[in-house]
Every structure is written in structure tokens, then in C-alpha cells.
């Protein structure tokens, strides 16, 4: 059998490697050189200007994820202070109908976390969701391809990666396609505000959209209370008698996480998969020869280019990790992108290698422990269906040479803003 071992394509510019604060455009275009330098020089590195500790080694990231009693998740999604630094945005949020605002799931610690997680898991039930929707998803993916197949090229992000998870989100929330693209806009603004280091305007837009989103959720809650529904929100309301019902604020927070979590990272995951196939000589043929290898493609892509590069924790007390003294209430960046290439666990981690045994060392793309991604099975299935259908319809995928790929500008989501691919069919 022919083996395809292609070096990962992102060039390590010296500027990126120099900028271990990860804030420069070069470091954002390709952070892996900077990660490698951090791992080699100072695996737990304090950035004074951001008051942030970067945790770069696999073992340390895994330790922190596995000990939620020592590390709080209250600001798990943001490196910056999100709304805190923007009085105008905070003023807008005061009009919220769901006060006090409530942290759930990814932003909550035990014991509240377990309570919400159980309810969401029941409502989202991957097994149920996939049984109900998988055939529809396949038909929808075929529909996306129908729209561009005659042209011999497509812009992957807008014509393929975005429509797929949005179709699933529309099924989960039982909303129209028009409505789901409104939701996508809200989600984009929420996400941009969360990642920190953004302009005030973005945070203000996110605050405004938060109010619109709350109204959407609360209207739906009211509908579902009147007429019981099997949509996600309807299921959130179906509480067993021995459990307290969720408050409106909790439902809103849960729905915003399912919305953002259900699209942002999956969009980038799918784009990364298509990019890998289109840019790696021989990979498409190997997947065609043995479609079971698509599972290995998914796992190796998740390891090599985890769409969500990092999550955050806060220390609950002063402690020592990996020989480094860290004060109480310190913000830690758990860098999955770096852990997934840690040389202690991965030989030639910078290489994408279809034959790598990702069963041997489990990558961190979906986190680990009590906060592990609740939608990971759904995301994997979306990726699998997307690639299966794509390979069954299109041949000889390659990156268009007239319009180069554009990477995401935000740190934290590894993927593409646009990605033009040409093909034969």
C-alpha cells in the first residue's frame, strides 16, 4: 500500500515563532511554531501583558482537565474579559429579561455543571439526534453539492462547511433556514466577543444580539409550554418530577452554548478536512480505496488542527503544575493545539499522518473529563457524512491557485475564512 506522509503545510514564519504572545497576524496564521518554542523553552509560560498562563504540554493540559475541583471553568471560553471592559455593552445587557445571567455547562463548575450536563445530554441525545437526522443530513449535503458541481469549483466555507452544521442546528432547534442564518449571525458575534482582544463595536453587537437571542429562546419556551414539542428547547422543558425545572436564564445560557458549539467549531472542522484532502497528495486516493479510513482522517485532522485551539481555566488556590508555582485565581490557557503536537507523545507531531494511531494517544480536540464536548459524536458524524458524500461526487480535489486560502483572523478557531477548491466530476 502506498503511504502518504506529507509535512503539514503551514510555513513557520520566523515572525510567528518570535511572537509567543500569539497575538500577531503571523502567529495567528500559523501558531504551531510558537507553540513548539513555548513547549521547548517554558512549557507553562506567563504572559504578563495578558495576565495569562499558557499551558502547552499534553500531560499538564490533561491534568488540569481531569481536576475540575482544582480549576474553575467560570471563564472557560475567554482569554480577555469579554463584556467586563465595555461599559456600553454592559449597559445594553442590563435590559436582559433573564436576570441574573446564569452560567451553565462549559462555564459552570460542579455541582451545578453536572445538573445541567445531564439535562442537556438527555435533550441533545446524540444517539436519538443522529438516528433522526443522519439520512436528512446526507440528502442536504448532496443538495449543497448540486448547487456548485457544474462549475468545477467551490468556496468550501460558505458553500459547504457552513450550510451543513447550520442544517443540523435548524433541525435541533426546529427552525426555518431563514431563521437559522439569523442565529448564525448572532452566534458569530457572541463568539467574536468571547475570544477577547476585539473592538468595542463587536462586543456591543454581541450584547445587542444577546437580547434578540433571548427573545427568540423565551418565545420558543412559551410556545413549547403551550404545545409540547420534541425540539431541543421542548426537551429541555421535559423535566422528571424529582428534578427542579430550569430557569429561563439557564435555558438561555444552555441554548447559546448549543448554538455556538453546534456550528463554529464544526464549520472549521469540515473546512480543515476538505483542506487536508485537497492539499495532501495521494490522500484522496487512499480514502477512496478504503473509505473506512475516513475515521482516521477525522481523528488525525482533529489532532493536527483542532478547530478549537484552546480553552481556559482559573486556579482555585495557589499550586504547582509541572514544577511551576502558579498563584490563586490565575487564568490558564489550556492549549489543545500545542498538546496535540507535544513531542513527548507524538512523533513528528507537525506532520499530518493518516497512519498515526490516534487510539494510542487520545487527542485533546474535544477536551477531556466532565467538560468533554457533548456534541463530539454529532460533529464526527457530520464530518464523516460530509467527506463520504464529497468523495462520492467529486474527484481530484485541489486548492484553487487563483485565490489562495484565507485563515481565520481570530485566535482560537483554527480553520478558514475562505477556501477555494477545484475538482473534476
Amino acid at each position, binding site marked *: 500500500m502506498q503511504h502518504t506522509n506529507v509535512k503539514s503545510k503551514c510555513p513557520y514564519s520566523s515572525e510567528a515563532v518570535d511572537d509567543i504572545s500569539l497575538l500577531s497576524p503571523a502567529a495567528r496564521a500559523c501558531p504551531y511554531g510558537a507553540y513548539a518554542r513555548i513547549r521547548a523553552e517554558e512549557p507553562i509560560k506567563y504572559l504578563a501583558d495578558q495576565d495569562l498562563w499558557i499551558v502547552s504540554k499534553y500531560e499538564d493540559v490533561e491534568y488540569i482537565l481531569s481536576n475540575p475541583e482544582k480549576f474553575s471553568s467560570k471563564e472557560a471560553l475567554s482569554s480577555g474579559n469579554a463584556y467586563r471592559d465595555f461599559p456600553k455593552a454592559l449597559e445594553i445587557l442590563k435590559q436582559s429579561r433573564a436576570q441574573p445571567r446564569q452560567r451553565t455547562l462549559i462555564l459552570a463548575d460542579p455541582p451545578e455543571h453536572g445538573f445541567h450536563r445531564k439535562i442537556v445530554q438527555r435533550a441533545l441525545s*446524540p444517539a436519538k439526534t443522529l438516528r433522526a437526522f443522519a439520512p436528512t443530513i446526507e440528502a442536504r449535503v448532496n443538495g449543497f453539492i448540486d448547487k456548485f458541481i457544474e462549475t468545477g469549483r467551490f468556496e468550501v466555507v460558505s458553500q459547504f462547511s457552513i450550510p451543513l452544521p447550520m442544517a443540523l442546528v435548524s433541525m435541533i432547534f426546529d427552525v426555518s433556514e431563514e431563521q437559522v442564518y439569523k442565529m448564525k449571525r448572532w452566534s458569530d458575534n457572541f463568539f467574536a466577543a468571547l475570544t477577547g482582544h476585539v473592538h468595542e463595536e463587536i462586543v456591543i453587537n454581541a450584547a445587542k444580539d444577546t437580547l434578540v437571542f433571548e427573545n427568540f429562546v423565551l418565545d420558543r419556551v412559551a410556545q413549547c409550554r403551550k404545545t409540547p414539542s420534541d425540539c431541543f428547547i421542548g426537551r429541555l422543558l421535559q423535566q422528571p418530577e424529582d428534578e427542579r425545572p430550569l430557569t429561563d436564564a439557564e435555558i438561555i445560557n444552555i441554548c447559546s452554548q448549543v448554538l455556538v458549539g453546534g456550528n463554529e467549531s464544526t464549520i472549521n472542522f469540515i473546512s480543515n478536512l476538505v483542506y487536508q484532502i485537497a492539499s495532501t497528495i495521494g490522500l484522496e486516493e487512499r480514502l477512496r480505496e478504503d473509505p473506512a479510513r475516513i475515521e482516521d482522517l477525522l481523528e488525525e485532522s482533529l489532532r493536527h488542527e483542532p478547530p478549537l485551539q484552546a480553552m481556559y481555566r482559573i486556579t482555585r488556590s495557589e499550586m504547582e503544575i509541572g514544577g511551576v508555582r502558579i498563584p490563586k485565581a490565575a487564568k490558564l490557557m489550556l492549549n489543545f493545539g500545542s498538546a496535540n503536537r507535544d513531542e513527548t507523545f507524538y512523533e513528528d507531531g507537525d506532520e499530518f499522518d493518516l497512519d498515526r494511531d490516534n*487510539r494510542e494517544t487520545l487527542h485533546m480536540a474535544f477536551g477531556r473529563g466532565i467538560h*468533554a*464536548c*457533548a456534541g463530539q459524536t454529532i460533529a464526527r458524524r457530520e464530518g464523516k457524512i460530509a467527506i463520504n458524500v464529497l468523495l462520492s461526487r467529486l474527484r481530484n480535489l485541489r486548492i484553487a491557485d487563483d485565490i489562495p486560502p484565507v485563515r481565520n483572523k481570530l485566535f482560537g478557531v483554527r480553520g478558514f475564512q475562505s477556501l477555494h477548491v477545484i475538482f473534476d466530476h
Partner: protein
Amino acid sequence: MVKVKVDMNLCEYHGQCVFVAPKEFQFDDNDELVYSEEVPEEARARVEKAAKACPQLAIKVE
């Protein structure tokens, strides 16, 4: 022998155990999870990995 127990009240059919330890965990024709409740010592590392991979933390290994 190593004892393996899956809490089926927690299991949500994510299938991570099937991916990590396909010899010990499988889905049957009805998509139900079937697994070996006792596995030889050689398989310990693999089932422990499956327990670690489980997003529901539903697998206990003794």
C-alpha cells in the same frame, strides 16, 4: 481478569469506546452497545483508555 462496567444510565452511544477499544466494545446490529465485562490483563491499558475517552465517564474499570 479485569472487570469492566458501563453505566447504561450514563451511556449516550458516543461510540468513543468502540473507536479506542474495538475488541472490547462494539455496537450490535440494533446499534446497542455490547461489551466484555471481563477482559484479560493484557487488555487493561486499552479499556482504561476507553474509560478515559468516554465523554460521559460511564465506563468503570477495576
